[in-house]
């Protein structure tokens, strides 16, 4: 078990390393190939040749790409110094460099965005798992009835409608038309939990609607498959109450495959729900990524990509470890 864990963590670190290599390569090599200049991006179009050169030296843009990558990795692990002449700026590990636009350090900037994204992802996840699974189970049990058809039609709508449609529609109805919710910005949970929830409820519902739809369909399919299994017939043949047959025997195996899907979805969401954050003006990682892309702010984009990759790899590691517990047929080691 311990050997397995160490091997998996090693693999996870390796995956992240490859992600840094690829993203770094793309973001810093492509400008070279296309002839655009990262230093110019950093300093703006009005720069003179001298300050441009200074920036190049400070950010190390003049170095070969391999050396730049090495310095970037070093910055990630132990931090790095940016020197331009006499003044040295130290950037603590994990250093993701400086924003080209705001000249702020990227790491603290992104870290401050994580609570927003985390609040959004966790709240939405709770909603979509509850709603999706409940709908899916009911649909499976009432297969072919009006309830089933209605739920599955709703789910189809949920899968098909994009966030920027449902999100805007929800805002228009609940904030501007009915006036039930304030057009509030994000309030930290610790500051005021009520305002926190009030500001997030619409994003939660919008995001959850999309995912709940997928989960309802998935749960329904899994449950229908499970209900046809021999061991469900055995459970009934033992004289168990239908409640136990469904609630214990069928759910146990019907929901297990959802864990994998949930890990993937949740991990990806922690890297930023770009559309939802943009629609509801939430300053999370997704919003930051969008800003970064708009402004050609390479360190920000690189930073968000890395954080997203980290969450996906990390959550998947947890899911894999969890699988050894929830499915006894999977032997870890």
């Amino acid at each position: 078990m311990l050997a397995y864990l160490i091997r998996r963590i090693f693999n996870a670190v390796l995956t992240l390393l490859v992600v840094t290599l690829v993203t770094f390569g793309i973001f810093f090599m492509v400008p070279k190939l296309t002839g655009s200049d990262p230093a110019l991006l950093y300093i703006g179009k009005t720069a003179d040749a001298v300050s441009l050169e200074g920036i190049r030296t400070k950010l190390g843009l003049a170095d070969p790409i391999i050396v730049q990558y090495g310095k970037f990795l070093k910055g990630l692990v132990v931090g790095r110094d940016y020197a331009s002449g006499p003044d040295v700026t130290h950037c603590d590990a994990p250093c993701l460099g400086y924003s080209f636009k705001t000249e702020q350090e990227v790491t603290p900037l992104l870290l401050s965005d994580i609570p927003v994204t985390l609040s959004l992802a966790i709240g939405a996840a709770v909603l979509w798992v509850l709603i999706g699974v409940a709908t899916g189970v009911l649909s499976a049990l009432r297969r072919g009835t009006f309830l089933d058809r209605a739920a599955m039609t709703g789910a189809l709508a949920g899968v098909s409608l994009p966030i920027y449609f449902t999100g805007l529609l929800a805002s228009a109805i609940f904030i501007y038309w009915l006036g039930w919710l304030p057009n509030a910005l994000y309030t930290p949970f610790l500051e005021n939990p009520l305002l926190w929830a009030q500001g997030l409820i619409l994003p939660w519902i919008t995001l959850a609607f999309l995912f709940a739809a997928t989960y309802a369909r998935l749960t329904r399919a899994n449950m229908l498959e499970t209900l046809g299994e021999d061991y469900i017939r055995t459970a009934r043949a033992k004289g168990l109450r239908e409640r136990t047959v469904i609630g214990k025997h069928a759910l146990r195996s019907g929901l297990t495959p959802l864990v994998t899907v949930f890990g993937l979805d949740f991990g990806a969401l922690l890297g930023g729900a770009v559309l939802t954050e943009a629609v509801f003006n939430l300053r999370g990682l997704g919003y930051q990524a969008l800003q970064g892309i708009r402004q050609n702010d390479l360190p920000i984009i690189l930073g968000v990509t890395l954080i997203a990759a980290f969450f996906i790899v990390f959550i998947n590691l947890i899911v894999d470890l969890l699988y050894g517990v929830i499915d006894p047929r999977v032997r870890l080691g």
Partner: protein
Amino acid sequence: MSTDSLAGLTLPGDRNTRPFLEVKDLTVRFETDDGVVQAVSNSSFVVEKGKTLGIVGESGSGKSVTSLAVLGLHRTRSNAKVDGQIWLDDEELVTATDEQVRKLRGGKMAMIFQDPLSAMHPYFTVGAQIVEAYRVHHGASRKDARTRAIDMLARVGIPQPERRFSDYAHQFSGGMRQRAMIAMALVNNPKLLIADEPTTALDVTVQAQILDLIRDLQEEFGSAVIMITHDLGVVAELADDVLVMYGGKIIERGPATAVFQDPQHPYTWGLLGSMPRLDRDVRERLNPVKGSPPSLINLPSGCSFHPRCPYAGRNGERSFNEVPELRGGMHAVACHLPAESRREIFQQEVAPNL
């Protein structure tokens, strides 16, 4: 419908002497998108305590559907329609409430399934599944149920039952898994045990052990046993009485010795002819029943066996347009051929080749 009972028992309706299990005119239909599946038609049979009834037939002949109907397991399928009467120990099960039947299931009547790997839950330990079966019928504590489950595991011959209690089904070998399944079925001392092809998924050497085990346990508990199989060897080994089913109907019914020594129906001849025998000269080929089982949605007119019957039409057009009734006393058969010609055909054409 003929009201003949097996083994010369008294006529149905006499409550004082009603057999332990009596199935009367059982009909099971499934409504599907393709049409109505006539899975079992007008089947009647009885089983007494301590006796074993073997039900044989090809896949889709209605064997399993019959046994699931006795257990009331079609109730959870909304498209299934069950008619007729099933009397278990003076209780009628077709008209009983779901709750009444549920309480009998796993208690007074239990079932051993064919493939124990798929019939056991993959995520619960074998012990937990047996404990669950016990506790649903007895309000026993977890500890008592555990002791009982370990006893049962030992009883069916599983070594180190204390340790195996916490194992999962996939950690058992095929034979041990079937033993565990039997332990689960017997944990409540059922008076009626239905075994649906209990040895089909097992090695031949293990098959014999499992059959011995079922026989021993039956003697110990005095249960009535229904043994569903397509293996005539198993029936010959265990059964007191035999039902031969074809296309959802009973086509021959009688004491095992009579059915094996003096089979009456051409289909039974075919089944016996399909059996490899080691104690005879090796022939070039077996004599299988030609053709394939009928579709239960669209049964052939008249005798449903007529498309495969080499003797169809010998008795005029009746084979093609009249459903034969199950006739006879202890040894009954549903065939249009007159008894004399059947005897003649069997002795001259069939028996020498068996």
